[in-house]
């Protein structure tokens, strides 16, 4: 009796599901059960299609369950990095990199912080933002190792090192030769070097030269920053740069496997246009696109490294520089024609091929490293450019061209033998087959398999571990520049739209699963890593940890005390729920105050914030962390200082007073 009723109910639910989906639509393989009727009713009320429901159950993450992947997306002009979980597309963390950020206390009075060495603008003021473009995870044998993340700042030619043990920025290096970059960061297969390619040509060394001397004095640059993994720092003393012609170098990738030891950078403006729309000259947009082809730069960095060892480099502004002349003479630099104004150059998982996306050409052009090596050996050149750089014969280097659609920009790979290329103008992602690479797709090589519309104007794309020797496939994220009508309008500044695409099945089957609006900045590129590769700390290993040095600080405030020494006041302040010690700091106007704060907590999430009202100071003290803050007490008055994180029930009571006595007259 009871069983019968149950059976009948189940049949009704199953019938409802069948009725709804027409196709006997079933949930993920585990289920084999129809959706509960309440879910079906809700889906019907909202007018969801079976595809919508699949997308929902593919991405929904129940509370307390963890994502399979982390995506590290640049934050564009926010100067940050966003950490996003996949497939839920939840924003898990923002990492402050080039821009002061109060939650992390980044850049607000910290003596020991990566921002302490910010470059200064010509007026002597520190530069307090950045334009993060391309994140690069550290690699071991061509695979992400989950230890470090690098990212470039296009607006100031800087590079940042982020340690993934605590997801914090440890170092900013400033390129002494250029003001801007673009192809940064890209790492060599064992993170020997972090590559930074310039964008807009400038006189090297940050000096003046009239634009009429563009060809003679303006130059491009490829900088190979040496990474010291042990120290977790870029080592500028052992880094070097290669002078390039004043074409505008764009994206870059490092070779791997058979192409290990080589770096590839594409370029535009091989016309060396200098603009001047105001004088009736062709504007840059026309001048830089006059020729049909630009040059893919093929750089033998192992050879360049050798030249450095042989002292064949000059030194400019402290940076070892291989001149263009030396680079040509020693066989470090070669060119191959590429369709004009391309965007990405991406090395396939096997390392055999380089894919250049045409941007203004509907094809991707595929070059073979063996072809290139053979052509170089045989001096199979079609000429030299104005600077004497040999140009490898295009047909000798080319392996295939695949027509994909309008505006191909950037290519990523999977574990099924497919390549994916973003199509900016078509607003779509194309899936096409590689030939004779590490994985073999069912379709015939070098052909377009399918296209999936994305919304809208896709720039970069990222697939799971998609630029390594072992891509995971599964997910692709389309980083769309325009969201147009995807969200209810929130004023004229629209969010970027990051879309998760299911690429798990072969053939023409890609489907958009989820839209993530980003209303903070414009992510350019992202890398996606399996979450379990990252071994991050829950709390700092010891009380008194200095996160910049990643070791115990020399000054640990275990007991509250104030030391006065002439004009200097040192305050040692342990921090624990729910009090600061001391709670009164009395100083004289004009005294130099140093606060040594230590969070004594050893409990997950027991973070305290610290700020002094009126003094532009903000710090984040994660469990175990020590922070040093310097300020001059130049404004007399009474300033409460308090905890910025709602740490406990007595959080509001976690407070103290800074009392700055006015300087006595006379």
């Amino acid at each position, binding site marked *: 009796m009871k069983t019968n009723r149950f059976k009948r109910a189940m049949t009704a639910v199953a019938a409802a599901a069948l009725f709804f989906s027409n196709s006997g639509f079933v949930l993920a393989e585990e289920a084999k059960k129809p959706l509960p009727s309440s879910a079906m009713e809700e889906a019907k009320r909202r007018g969801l299609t079976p595809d919508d429901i699949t997308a929902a159950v593919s991405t929904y993450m129940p509370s307390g369950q963890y994502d399979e992947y982390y995506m590290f997306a640049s934050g564009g002009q926010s100067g940050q990095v966003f950490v996003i979980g996949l497939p839920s597309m939840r924003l898990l963390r923002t990492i402050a990199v080039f821009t002061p950020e109060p939650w992390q206390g980044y850049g607000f009075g910290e003596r020991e912080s990566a921002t302490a060495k910010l470059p200064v603008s010509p007026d002597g003021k520190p530069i307090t933002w950045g334009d993060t473009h391309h994140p690069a995870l550290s690699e071991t044998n061509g695979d992400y190792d989950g230890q470090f993340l690098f990212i470039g700042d296009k607006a100031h030619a800087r590079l940042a090192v982020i340690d993934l043990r605590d997801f914090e920025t440890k170092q900013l290096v400033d390129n002494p030769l250029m003001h801007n970059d673009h192809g940064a960061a890209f790492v060599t297969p064992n993170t020997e070097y972090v590559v930074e390619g310039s964008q807009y040509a400038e006189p090297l060394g940050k000096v003046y030269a009239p634009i009429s001397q563009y060809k003679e004095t303006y130059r491009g640059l490829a900088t190979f920053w040496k990474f010291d993994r042990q120290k977790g720092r870029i080592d500028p003393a052992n880094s070097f740069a290669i002078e390039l012609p004043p074409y505008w170098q764009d994206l870059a990738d490092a070779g791997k496997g058979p192409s290990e030891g080589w770096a590839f950078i594409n370029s535009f403006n091989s016309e060396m246009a200098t603009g001047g729309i105001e004088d009736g000259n062709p504007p840059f947009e026309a001048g830089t696109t006059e020729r049909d082809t630009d040059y893919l730069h093929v750089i033998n960095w192992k050879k360049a490294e050798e030249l450095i060892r042989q002292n064949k480099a000059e030194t400019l502004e402290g940076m070892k520089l291989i001149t263009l002349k030396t680079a040509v003479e020693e066989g470090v630099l070669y060119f191959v024609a590429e369709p004009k104004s391309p965007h990405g150059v991406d090395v396939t998982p096997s390392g055999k091929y380089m894919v250049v996306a045409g941007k203004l050409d509907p094809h991707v052009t595929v070059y073979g490293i063996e072809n290139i090596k053979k052509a170089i050996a045989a001096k199979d050149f079609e000429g030299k450019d104005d600077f004497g750089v040999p140009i490898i014969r295009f047909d000798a280097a080319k392996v295939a061209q695949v027509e994909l659609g309008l505006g191909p920009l950037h290519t990523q790979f999977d574990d099924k033998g497919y390549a994916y290329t973003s199509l900016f103008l078509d607003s779509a992602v194309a899936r096409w087959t590689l030939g004779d690479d590490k994985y073999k797709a069912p379709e015939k090589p070098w052909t377009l398999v399918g296209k999936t519309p994305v919304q809208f104007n896709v720039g970069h794309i990222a697939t799971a571990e998609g630029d390594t020797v072992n891509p995971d496939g599964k997910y692709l994220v389309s980083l769309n520049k325009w969201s147009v009508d995807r969200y209810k309008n929130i004023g004229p500044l629209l969010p970027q739209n990051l879309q998760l695409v299911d690429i798990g099945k072969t053939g023409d089957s890609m489907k958009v699963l989820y839209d993530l609006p980003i209303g903070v900045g414009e992510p350019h590129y992202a890398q996606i890593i399996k979450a379990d590769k990252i071994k991050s700390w829950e709390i700092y290993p010891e009380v008194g940890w200095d996160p910049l040095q990643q070791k115990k600080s020399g000054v640990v405030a275990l007991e509250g005390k104030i030391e006065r020494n002439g004009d200097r006041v040192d305050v040692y302040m342990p921090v*624990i*729920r*729910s009090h600061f010690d001391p709670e009164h700091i009395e100083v004289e106007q004009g005294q130099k105050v140093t606060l040594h704060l230590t969070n*004594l*907590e*050893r*409990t997950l999430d027991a973070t305290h914030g610290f700020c002094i009202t009126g003094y532009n100071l903000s710090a984040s003290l994660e469990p175990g962390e020590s922070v040093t803050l310097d300020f001059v007490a130049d404004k007399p008055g009474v300033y409460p200082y308090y905890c910025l994180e709602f740490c*406990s*029930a*007595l959080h509001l*009571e976690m407070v103290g007073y800074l009392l700055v006595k006015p300087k006595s007259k006379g």
Partner: protein
Amino acid sequence: MQSANKGLRGPALQAALVLGGLALLGSVFLPYWQLKITAPQYPKGLRVQVYLNRVEGDVQEIDTLNHYIGMRPLVDAAKLERSISLAGVIALMFVLLSAVFYQGRFSLLLLLPAAVFPAVFIGDLYYWMRDFGLNLNPHAALSSSVKPFIPPLFGEGKIAQFKAVAWFGAGFYLSSFTSLVSAAVLALRLFGSRKSR
């Protein structure tokens, strides 16, 4: 009489006493008492393990929480007992072992300390729990919402938003074994010999 005494002196009981002594020594390395407290924001819970000579586990966090209700830090509890516990247990062991060789009338006194030791431990633990739980600082932040209380010695209890579970540890059970052995020998020596008389 003779046979009964022979039995008492028999190798089995001697071995039991030696085993009891070793168990007592071994108990020093194991927790005697454990407490686990859980609350929504502590899904993994917080634990303390009380050994004879030390307290381990999430002591810092528990002290941090306790200061809100005005409880003294755990390190202030049973200072004397902890400081003499190792020497005491070793002495207790030797006293017990001497009962292996000396079986005279006063050997009962040698067996008694080990027999009552676990009870003494419980009594002392309860004394300190009571002392800590009932003597809360009246000026503490949560003094109005958490009134003086006695934490559970064994089983479940509730302290503010925390659910507490307490149980005895392996060390306690080892010493209880010693206690049983001592009590058994004691009983046999006491009543066994009387009966046969």
